[in-house]
């Protein structure tokens, strides 16, 4: 180590760990970490504890005196109509995850392993570039495409196929969600496929495996952590998404995020019920994160 001789040769400095020095060692972390910490505490931690608190007060409306504590808000979730909303939210999230995986894997595979190495980074950036554009506008674009007189039906009409009425259906929601979140899946699968040890694929080929066997027995198991991480991430963000079901799903596609929105800014105001739904959503996401941390790829936490 080059550092140790220099500190040993300057005993004047090290022999007097003055009070000021020790104080600055204590003050420095506080100075660096306290402002952001206080901000997060005030505007994230305390608010979350507050909605946990009011989720336990049934029937709370703004401006009313809170009644007694109870589990009424959570029990309301088991109403058949609300259970159907939960089921639909899960269906959208799982459907989106499967579609993103099926569409994203070949793309990530091609960019990571088959494309010319020089172009790899550029291709990846080009594929995920739409992520930078507003999610609201991306969903709006799908209204333009899917509406009855939209682009899709013009194209279908041009090749003599019957028109489809997809806007305001669950299919439209899944299309919008898949389009929005496919780049995340590709990013994470790419990170995982890029690290794939190609010698294993060569070895598999040498030992007589065909392409399909090599893929199923080498590529897929090797990238399983990436597949798990990408799938859970897409699942989490589609579960909590509000804009795609709101703009593309119509009245029949009520989801948990829309239901929460309605309890606060919509027609049916009920802060207690809305808070309970938010807690359920946070719980579902935490569960998915716990799974991700347990089975996911540690290297891609930064995404």
């Amino acid at each position, binding site marked *: 180590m080059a550092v140790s001789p220099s500190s040993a040769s300057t005993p004047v400095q090290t022999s007097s760990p003055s009070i000021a020095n020790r104080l600055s060692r204590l003050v420095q972390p506080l100075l660096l970490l306290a402002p952001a910490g206080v901000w997060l505490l005030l505007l*994230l931690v305390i608010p979350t504890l507050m909605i946990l608190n009011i989720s336990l007060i049934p029937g709370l409306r703004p401006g009313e005196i809170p009644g007694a504590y109870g589990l009424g808000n959570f029990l309301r979730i088991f109403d058949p109509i609300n259970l159907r909303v939960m089921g639909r939210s899960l269906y959208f999230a799982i459907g989106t995850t499967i579609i993103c995986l099926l569409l994203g894997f070949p*793309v990530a595979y091609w960019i990571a392993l088959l494309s010319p190495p020089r172009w790899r980074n550029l291709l990846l950036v080009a594929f995920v570039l739409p992520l930078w554009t507003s999610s609201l506008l991306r969903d709006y674009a799908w209204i333009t495409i899917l509406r009855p007189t939209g682009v899709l039906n013009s194209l279908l009409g041009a090749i003599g196929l019957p028109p489809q009425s997809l806007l305001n259906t669950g299919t439209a929601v899944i299309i919008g969600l898949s389009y929005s979140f496919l780049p995340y899946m590709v990013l994470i699968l790419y990170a995982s496929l890029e690290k794939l040890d190609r010698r294993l694929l060569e070895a598999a080929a040498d030992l007589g495996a065909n392409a399909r066997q090599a893929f199923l027995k080498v590529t897929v198991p090797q990238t399983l952590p990436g597949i798990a991480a990408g799938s859970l991430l897409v699942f989490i963000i589609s579960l909590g998404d509000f804009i795609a079901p709101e703009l593309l799903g119509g009245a029949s596609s009520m989801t948990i995020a829309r239901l929460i929105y309605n309890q606060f800014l919509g027609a049916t105001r009920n802060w207690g019920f809305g808070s309970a739904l938010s807690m359920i959503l946070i719980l579902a996401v935490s569960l998915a994160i716990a799974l991700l941390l347990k089975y996911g790829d540690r290297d891609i936490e930064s995404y």
Partner: protein
Amino acid sequence: MKRISWQTLFTWIMFAFMYFPILVLAFYSFNASRFSAGWEGFSLRWYASMIQDQRILSALQDSLTVAIAAVAVSAVLGTMMAVGLAKFRFPGKSLYRGVSYLPLIVPDIAIAVATLVFLASIGLALSLWTVIAAHIVFCLAYIAIVVSTRLSGLNPHLEEAALDLGANPFQAFMKVLLPEIAPAIVSGCLLAFVLSMDDFLISSFTAGGGATTLPMEIFSRVRTGVKPDMNALSVVLILASGALAFASEYIRYRSEQRRLGQ
């Protein structure tokens, strides 16, 4: 002739899929007709009506105010947080780090609800300021993540060397550490800026009647159908965020090249 594999073909189809909706918006933004899905001639009238629309302009102003203020505060707080987390060990550090990841993980709708409930219960009137305060929460988290990633790839002895050579901690930070992490701070800020400009839910819940950001204005218009001037606005916004994305990627690329060169 070289045979094109199905993977190559599929990837190009998916690239087309990613850009198709954006191209559709761009195409219709130049369409003269208001209602027809068909092409009725080239026109810039939607761009003209957009830049004369006072509500859009004032919403843009609100959005820019929020994004710039939130990013400016977050750049300082987020960088300090990342540096503090990289340098010091203290009890409760993993809890602190965990809380700092929350805005990236918890769905926007839940954060929006929690912030609204908090602001209502302390009796703070909703305004542009409450929107900025709420945006700082997630901007801060994203900037801290980007800077942390850079810090973890840094030689920890650089700052010690500066201190050994007689620099005080402030000088060591400004002259040694800051130039190293500056590209990460800038790309973190660009990311946070785009996310802030893009945010609909947290703004809607914390603005009350006091402010209308651009996504709120767009949302209130498009939920009732297709509006051709929204196509024009989309194109402008998409180009702007595309330019920011490009800038961010370029900065990242440059700093990586420099690091490899060292």
